[in-house]
């Protein structure tokens, strides 16, 4: 069994209530931090832990915290990004609804470390029931003296606000989130300035993912060094993986970073292998935004060594043969999945979710979607494939926020690794458009 940091008590009955959570050792980290540690002391532990942001970009959390500007007389804010809308990623939802107090405890510690007196949890708007769960948890914590004025007699005040999201994937991008939180249209901002300098209401702000913040409690209790000892190198600690697709046991799993991909995929502790009678065809390892990998590149690196569930190992080989850990949305495809259809589906999502501010993303996502639709429905031509590659290339890196890249990568990688399948759709339109038809060419199935 791997080490559990976040989900250790997930199966304890009543863990969503304050009393049970407290009995399992909850809120001891708040007591320890506020009574015995300075705010900078907490920041130092998080730095030592080496934890990287769990929202997708993987930016070291302690470093982000230490970049926070601290001008005199200006409030600072902590905002928790709980907008989770990436296709394939559903870990934050799971965490918040089952152990809401873990996030609340993390919020108190993180706010204390950053010197924030008002902090926000921006929750995906569709998750109204989770918002109610969090509000109940906040009320309980407040009644017990862990929130509000003069927490534990320390003189430190903190108010926690739960805010329902604006109903768009783009509101998960940190600066769009801040705009939305300010009551405006959720358009990403141009950076710089970064939120650490000018964030919410133009004040210094830290935005962190639910999972990142929830981890703070364990780090304070056990020390940054203990956390850094888990995992491998710069991929320290544990990570929640949302496993879905053609596997026997879909669900949210906490793994120690460094587990081999093969083990994660086939071990009964986790995914339990591909459903009976089928074979692995492809994998999206980190949510819909990251490049898709074909079966032969998933479990082994180019040099024959096993590929591990770490930031570094998954991206080994760059975009030619690698992918990214992203937000940990582990989507598995067997041989019944049509890559063209899936790529079109992802593309449809990004087209729908582009905020429309910058021309490459606004126009390019729609263009790619329409061309993919055409290919999927038997009206494509060979030059469409190169057109898609070119459009993706023209979007990538030229946009305001990373949604443009996220829209381009799935298309570019699907064509890179499954070009024959796209060609088959074009050369065999009547076969390819039969319900459930899938290319059965020379594929490396595992």
């Amino acid at each position, binding site marked *: 069994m791997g080490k559990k940091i976040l989900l250790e008590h997930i199966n304890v009955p009543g863990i969503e209530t304050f009393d049970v959570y407290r009995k399992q050792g909850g809120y001891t980290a708040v007591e320890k931090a506020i009574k015995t540690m300075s705010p900078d002391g907490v920041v130092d532990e998080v730095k030592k832990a080496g934890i990287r942001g769990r929202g997708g970009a993987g930016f070291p959390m302690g470093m982000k915290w230490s970049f926070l500007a601290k001008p005199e007389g200006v409030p600072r804010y902590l905002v928790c990004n709980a907008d989770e809308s990436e296709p394939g990623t559903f870990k934050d939802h799971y965490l918040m609804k089952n152990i809401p107090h873990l996030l609340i405890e993390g919020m108190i510690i993180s706010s204390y470390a950053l010197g924030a007196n008002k902090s926000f949890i921006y929750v995906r708007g569709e998750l109204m029931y989770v918002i109610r769960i969090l509000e109940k948890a906040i009320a309980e914590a407040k009644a017990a003296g862990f929130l509000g004025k003069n927490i534990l007699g320390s003189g430190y005040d903190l108010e926690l606000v739960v805010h329902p999201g604006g109903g*768009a994937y*783009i509101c998960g991008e940190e600066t769009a989130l801040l705009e939305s939180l300010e009551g405006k*249209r959720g358009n990403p901002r*141009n950076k710089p300035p970064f939120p650490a300098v000018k964030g919410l209401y133009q004040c210094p702000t830290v935005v962190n993912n639910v999972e990142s913040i929830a981890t703070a409690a364990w780090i304070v209790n056990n020390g940054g060094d203990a956390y850094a000892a888990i995992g491998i190198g710069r991929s320290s600690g544990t990570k929640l993986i949302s496993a879905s697709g053609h596997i026997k046991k879909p669900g949210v799993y906490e793994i120690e970073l460094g587990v081999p991909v093969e083990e994660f995929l086939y071990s009964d502790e986790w995914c339990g292998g591909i459903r009976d009678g089928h074979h692995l065809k492809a994998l999206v390892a980190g949510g819909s935004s990251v490049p898709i990998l074909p079966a032969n590149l998933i479990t082994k690196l180019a040099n024959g060594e096993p590929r591990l569930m770490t930031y570094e190992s998954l991206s080994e080989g760059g975009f030619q043969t690698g992918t990214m850990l992203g937000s940990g949305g582990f989507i598995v495809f067997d041989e019944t999945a049509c890559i063209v259809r899936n790529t079109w589906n992802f593309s449809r999502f990004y*087209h*729908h*979710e*582009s*905020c*429309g*501010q*910058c*021309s*490459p*993303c*606004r*126009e*390019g*996502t*729609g*263009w790619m979607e*329409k*061309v993919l639709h*055409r290919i999927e429905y038997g009206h494509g031509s060979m030059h469409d494939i190169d*057109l898609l590659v070119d459009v993706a290339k*023209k979007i990538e*890196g*030229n*946009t*305001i926020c990373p949604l443009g890249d996220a829209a381009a990568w799935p298309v570019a990688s699907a064509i890179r690794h499954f070009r024959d399948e796209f060609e088959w759709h074009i050369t065999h339109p009547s076969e390819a458009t039969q319900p459930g038809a899938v290319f059965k060419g020379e594929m490396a199935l595992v």
Partner: protein
Amino acid sequence: MEDIKPQLHKVTIDGIEVEVEPGTTILQAARKIGGDVAPPAMCYYQPLKGSGGKCRACLVRVAAGSAKDPRPMPKLVASCITPVQDGMVVENSTNEQVLTTRKAIVEFLLINHPLDCPVCDQAGECDLQNFAFNHGMATTRYEEERRTFEKHDIGPYIQLHMTRCILCYRCVYTADQITQKRVHGVLGRGDASEISTYIEKAVDNDFSGNVIDVCPVGALTDKTYRFKNRVWFTKPVDAHRDCPTCSGKVTAWYRGEEVIRVTARKNEWNEVTEFICNTCRFEKKKTSDWVIEGPTKISRSSVISANKYRADLIKPDFQKKLAAATYTDVDDERDTSQLGIQQLPPERFAPVLPHANDPEP
């Protein structure tokens, strides 16, 4: 306290050095040099706070970040919002990647554009036309259906033809910053976004007409001028009047003896220098309303100056004759050495004038 003047920053753009105040953007520094060194801008608008960064037309490569940290920047950057650093080296029209990307931006902006220039009032003074002409390709790779919208009347004077909009947000910033309350914004997402007045509420504000001038394309047009004329047949003059609401300094556009349109004055980058009120713009269409100062200096929108001021440069003959016949009354002694038209070799016009070599009628 000593009164120290801020140290100027030295920047090199396309191999040309320029010194600018700290805080200047790359685009502004490049405009100081002028010519091809200045990147195109489709959304940035100097008078509007917060504008820029959206269209990506102005992307440039930063080959060296600063004297202190001479590393190149990993991605192309939007020159309109990126401040210069001392010792920065920038590549604009000298960089292949920049030019390729710019071509792509033109393509992106055009795939959902109706290309109805022949019936569009903006034609001839359209930033998108200029941008496409200077940086785009002559053909399209787009085979899908284009998005379309219904036309909307925004109040009595302005029409919104959303199908032409490139979502530069200039009108939104204008409505935000120069009119008292904004009743006009963006609805929807992605390529379905639309400029809107909530529930078609009219923009009844003294300065609302300025959105027409800031619009880089023909999405916002002047209903008092719609379909009246082509800009290259009209003659702009600087004029003013004693106005209680605005400065009263405008450009009046003449066709023969008649003022057929009034706009704010623009600088060489097509940016309004002073916003004007709706009375000046829409209600004062008589020569007697205005004190005429003299012909407007046209330096960028070359088509406007083309037929009248430099008739001798326009080939072939029939056009010269047409121009001469139409504009015999134009007596213009201005210095034309700055006119953009001179820099364009005649071959540039050949493909767009299919009848150029037809025998004279």
